[in-house]
């Protein structure tokens, strides 16, 4: 299984979660974080300057499609980073 992690501006939330469900992810986990990157500091005091971190566990083929679409549709417009990790899950069939 792949754990795909997206960290980026909170206002992109809808866009990301819609994309996840379109690609068939069965769930996701999400929380607010602070961060600093190429597009400046987001100190999480007001929503415009908050980041969220979205984590989604998906089988490898879905992960590949997800990354492609994020690359094409979101990265050009939003302050955002994306990465993928290998994980071993309990209850494979859930994901």
């Amino acid at each position, binding site marked *: 299984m792949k754990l795909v992690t997206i960290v980026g*501006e909170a*206002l*992109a939330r*809808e*866009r990301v979660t819609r994309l996840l469900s379109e690609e068939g992810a069965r769930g996701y986990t999400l929380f*607010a974080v602070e961060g600093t990157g190429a597009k*400046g*500091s987001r*100190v*999480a*005091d*007001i*929503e*415009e*300057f*908050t980041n969220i971190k979205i984590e989604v566990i998906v089988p490898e083929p879905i992960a590949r499609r997800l990354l492609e679409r994020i690359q094409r549709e979101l990265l050009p*417009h*939003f302050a955002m980073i994306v990465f993928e990790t290998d994980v071993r899950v309990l209850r494979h069939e859930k994901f």
Partner: protein
Amino acid sequence: MDYLEAIQTNLASPAVLFFVLGLIATAVKTDLRFPEPLYLGLTIYLLVAIGFKGGVAMSVAGMSAVWLPALGATALGASIPLWSYPILRFVGRLPAVDAAAISAHYGSVSAVTFLAAVNYLSELGVPHEPYATAFLAVMESPAIIVGVVLGKLATRQEGVPFYSVMRLALHEALLGRSVFLLVGSLLVGFLCGQRGLTATAGFFVTPFQGVLALFLLDMGMVAARRFGDLRKVGTFLIGFGILMPVIHGMAGIILGYSVGLSLGGATLLGVLAASASYIAAPAAMRMTLPEANPTLYLTSALAITFPFNITFGLPLYYELARWWFGGSK
């Protein structure tokens, strides 16, 4: 009282001084910060309280007094992007989508600026229509919708179909957090009437001024954090962020006078026209015009126009209103 005195009165109010303290807090790099839940809590309180009280005032005054100025305010909000856009596009030479996004911000309104103006008028003892909150409520959305239409007409490259973007824009403009809270509380207040206010005045009225002062401390920190981006936006936008509010303020005052508002009410309509949204509009723009550069609109609304309005703008709009109303002391 002349403009200098008027500025002085404004600058000596707790609200404005706490705002300045917030600016300083960021400048000297103190580790003070208002965590987001606290910011959200203060926002919710301020919007609900102002909406509720405005609704009660509307139920007292009756819709017949409110509808004409409210219609005028709506129209003014919707038209501001129509002239701001060409100025940004052709004088400022900004990309179309940025021009559209910025013009939406200046047509929409800032609730905190409005509250600071109400505060200022009551320090001066100038009365105003208590249902003026209704103008705040109706001016938040129209410019956002107009701005998105302008932006989408100008840039067609994207795969996303026009109508689905407009659905998103309408949702954001009409059901975004701040619009919903304001309009909803207005309705609640309208339905309860004076009796509902009496029961809850200990929360919605008694501490209000102080909460606003504390909130402005936070807003000072938030605004100052954007000062670093000022050099990125260029002198044109800095000029735009100070001059256009004055023009819009004058337009609002004249409109208020024409629809029969009092001196105080016309000043408030001027302030609303002059103010730029930095909550509802940015969220809507990120959703619907993500190609637009947020640094441009956030910095001009939050780091230029907002501080200008809070400190020098309020007394200026009041003086302009007094001049237009012919009251030379």
